[in-house]
C-alpha cells in the first residue's frame, strides 16, 4: 500500500499541467468573484480572465524554453513541444475571444459572469486534449471542452436560435462522443491498453492485429468522433446552425480553439497510435478532405448571412488542414500547426469586425448590411479586408503561408491531385470572400453605422489579430521553425 502511494506521488507531475492548472484555478475563482459581484458587472471579470491567460502564457513560455518533455500522471500527459504549440493557439483563441466579448455581451443584454469562467474551463480542456497521451485523458479533455461549449452556445437564454444551437450541439456532440468511446473501447480490446504510444507499439509488434476488423472499426469510429468536432463533411451538419445561433464571440472561439484541439488529439492518435494504418486512414482522409473543402466552399457561396458564410468557410478550412494530415510528412504536419495558428488570428479577427458592425439582437450581419461599410468605417473596413484576404489565402497574409505549407506537404508526399483540388477550392472561395468586399466598397451606403462604438478590448483584439496575420504572412520562417520543432 505504501508503495502504491509512493508510486502515485512519483507519477504526479504538476509542472506537466501547470498552464491548464492555472486556467482551472482562475476559472473557479472567477465563478466566486462573479456571484459576489453586483449583477450585470462583468468588465472586471473579463480583465481578470485575461490576467489568468497571461499567467498561463508565461507558464507555456517556460514549457517551451525547457527542451525536456514533461511527463505526468503515469504517462497520461506529455507536455511536449507539440502540446505547447497548441497551447499557444488555445491561449490566443481564448484571449482574443474574451477581449471582444465584454462589450458584445452588454450590448446583447447578457452580462453573464460565468461566460468567462466557461471559456477558461474549455481552454483547459483543449490543453488536456493536446497534451493527453492516453485515450482516456484525451476523452476527459474533450468532455471538459465540449460541456463548457454546449452551455456557451446556448448562453442567450431568450433567443430561440441560441437555444437551438445549444441543444443541437449538445445532442449531436453527445452522440459523437459515443462514437469516439466505442472506438476507444475497440482499440482497447485489440491492444489491451489505452495509452496511445503503447497501442502504436502493440500494432507494430503484432502485424496480424492490423488486419483485424476490430482495429479498423476502432480507428473509423474514433475518427468519426473527432471529425464531428472538427466539422468534417459528412459530419458537419450541426456546424452552420450552431455557429449561426451561438453568441458571435463563441462562434469565433469554437471555430478556432476547440477545432484545433480536436485536430491536435486526432493528429497525435493517428501519428503515435495508428501509424501502421497510414494506408487506411490516409485513403479515408483523402476523400474526406476533398469532400470537406468542396462542400464547405460551394455552400458558402449561396449564403447571404456573413456569420453563416463564415461557418461554411470554417468547414472548408478544416478540409485544408486535413490535407496536411493526409500527407503526414514533416512539412504537412508542421503546416497544420502553422495553419491552425494562422486561422485563429484571421478568423477571430474577421468575427471581431463582424461583432462591432452588428446591431443589438445580432442584426445587420447580412451582406446588404455591409453596403458602403468600408468608406464609413475605414479602419474596420481595412481590417476586415486583411482578414478576408488571409482567409482566401492571398499573400502576404498568414492564410497564404499556411495553405502553402499544407499543400507543399501534400505535393512532397505525392498527393499532387489533392493539392490541385485544394488550390482550386481556394479559387472558389475567392468568390464569396470578395463579394463581402464588393459590398463594402462598391455599394452605396444605406446606413451611417452610427451605432458602432470602438470598445478598448475589441480594438486591442483586432490589432493583435492584424499583427498576427501580417507577421505570420510576412515572416513565416520563425513560427514555421517552431512548428517544425513541435511535430514528432
Amino acid at each position: 500500500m505504501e508503495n502504491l502511494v509512493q508510486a502515485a506521488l512519483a507519477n504526479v507531475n504538476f509542472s506537466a499541467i501547470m498552464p491548464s492548472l492555472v486556467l482551472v484555478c482562475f476559472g473557479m475563482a472567477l465563478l466566486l468573484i462573479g456571484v459576489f459581484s453586483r449583477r450585470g458587472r462583468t468588465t472586471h471579470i473579463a480583465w481578470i480572465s485575461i490576467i489568468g491567460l497571461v499567467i498561463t502564457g508565461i507558464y507555456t513560455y517556460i514549457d517551451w524554453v525547457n527542451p525536456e518533455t514533461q511527463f505526468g500522471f503515469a504517462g497520461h500527459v506529455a507536455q511536449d513541444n507539440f502540446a505547447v504549440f497548441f497551447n499557444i493557439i488555445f491561449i490566443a483563441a481564448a484571449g482574443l475571444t474574451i477581449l471582444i466579448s465584454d462589450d458584445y455581451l452588454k450590448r446583447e443584454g447578457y452580462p453573464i459572469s460565468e461566460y468567462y469562467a466557461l471559456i477558461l474551463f474549455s481552454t483547459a480542456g483543449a490543453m488536456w486534449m493536446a497534451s493527453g497521451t492516453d485515450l482516456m485523458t484525451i476523452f476527459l479533455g474533450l468532455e471538459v471542452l465540449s460541456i463548457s461549449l454546449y452551455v456557451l452556445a446556448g448562453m442567450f437564454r431568450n433567443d430561440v436560435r441560441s437555444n437551438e444551437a445549444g441543444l443541437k450541439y449538445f445532442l449531436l456532440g453527445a452522440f459523437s462522443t459515443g462514437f469516439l468511446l466505442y472506438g476507444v473501447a475497440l482499440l482497447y480490446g485489440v491492444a489491451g491498453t489505452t495509452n496511445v504510444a503503447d497501442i502504436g507499439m502493440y500494432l507494430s509488434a503484432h502485424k496480424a492485429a492490423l488486419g483485424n476488423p476490430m482495429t479498423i472499426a476502432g480507428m473509423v469510429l474514433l475518427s468519426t468522433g473527432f471529425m464531428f468536432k472538427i466539422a468534417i463533411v459528412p459530419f458537419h451538419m450541426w456546424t452552420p446552425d450552431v455557429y449561426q445561433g451561438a453568441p458571435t464571440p463563441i462562434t469565433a472561439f469554437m471555430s478556432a480553439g476547440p477545432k484545433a484541439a480536436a485536430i491536435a488529439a486526432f493528429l497525435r492518435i493517428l501519428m503515435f497510435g495508428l501509424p501502421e494504418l497510414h494506408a487506411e486512414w490516409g485513403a479515408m482522409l483523402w476523400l474526406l478532405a476533398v469532400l470537406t473543402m468542396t462542400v464547405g466552399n460551394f455552400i458558402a457561396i449561396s449564403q447571404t448571412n456573413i456569420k453563416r458564410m463564415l461557418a461554411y468557410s470554417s468547414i472548408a478550412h478544416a478540409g485544408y488542414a486535413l490535407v496536411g494530415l493526409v500527407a503526414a510528412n514533416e512539412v504537412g504536419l508542421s503546416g497544420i500547426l502553422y495553419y491552425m495558428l494562422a486561422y485563429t488570428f484571421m478568423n477571430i479577427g474577421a468575427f471581431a469586425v463582424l461583432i462591432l458592425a452588428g446591431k443589438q439582437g445580432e442584426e445587420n450581419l447580412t451582406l446588404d448590411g455591409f453596403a458602403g461599410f468600408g468608406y464609413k468605417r475605414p479602419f474596420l473596413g481595412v481590417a476586415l479586408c486583411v482578414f478576408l484576404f488571409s482567409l482566401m489565402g492571398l499573400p502576404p497574409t498568414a492564410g497564404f503561408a499556411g495553405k502553402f505549407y499544407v499543400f507543399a506537404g501534400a505535393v512532397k508526399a505525392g498527393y499532387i491531385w489533392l493539392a490541385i483540388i485544394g488550390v482550386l477550392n481556394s479559387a472558389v472561395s475567392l468568390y464569396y470572400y470578395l463579394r463581402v468586399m464588393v459590398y463594402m466598397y462598391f455599394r452605396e451606403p444605406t446606413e451611417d453605422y452610427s451605432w458602432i462604438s470602438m470598445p478598448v478590448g475589441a480594438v486591442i483584439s483586432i490589432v493583435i489579430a492584424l499583427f498576427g496575420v501580417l507577421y505570420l504572412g510576412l515572416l513565416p520562417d520563425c513560427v514555421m521553425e517552431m512548428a517544425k520543432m513541435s511535430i514528432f
Partner: protein
Amino acid sequence: MLDNYLPILVLVAIAFAFAAGSVVFSRLVGQKKPSVVKLAPYECGMPLFGTARDRFSIKFYIIAMLFIVFDIEVVFLYPWSVMFKRLGMFGFAEMGVFIVILFVGYVYVWKKGALEWE
C-alpha cells in the same frame, strides 16, 4: 474469479422467483373485489388531481442535479474514510483538493440562489 459472483446470482434468482411467485400466487388464490378507490394509481395518500404528464417546475431538476453532485462527493468520502490511515497525507491532500473544488461549487450555487425554493 467468477465463482465470487455466484451468491449474487443466487440472490438475483431468489428475488426474481419471489417477486414472480407473489404475483402469480395472489392472482391464483386471491379474491378480487375491485372498487374505484382500489383501482386508483395510489390507493393511499393524496387523491388524484390531474395527469402526470404535466410540466414540472425547473426547480426540481436543479435540486436533483445538485443532489447528484454532492451525493457523489459523499460516495467518494466513504472509501477514503476506510483507507484514511493508510493513505496518509497523500490521500488527505487529494481529498482536500476534491472537496475544495466541490466547495467552490457549493458556494457558487448558494450565492446564485439555486437552493432557495421560492
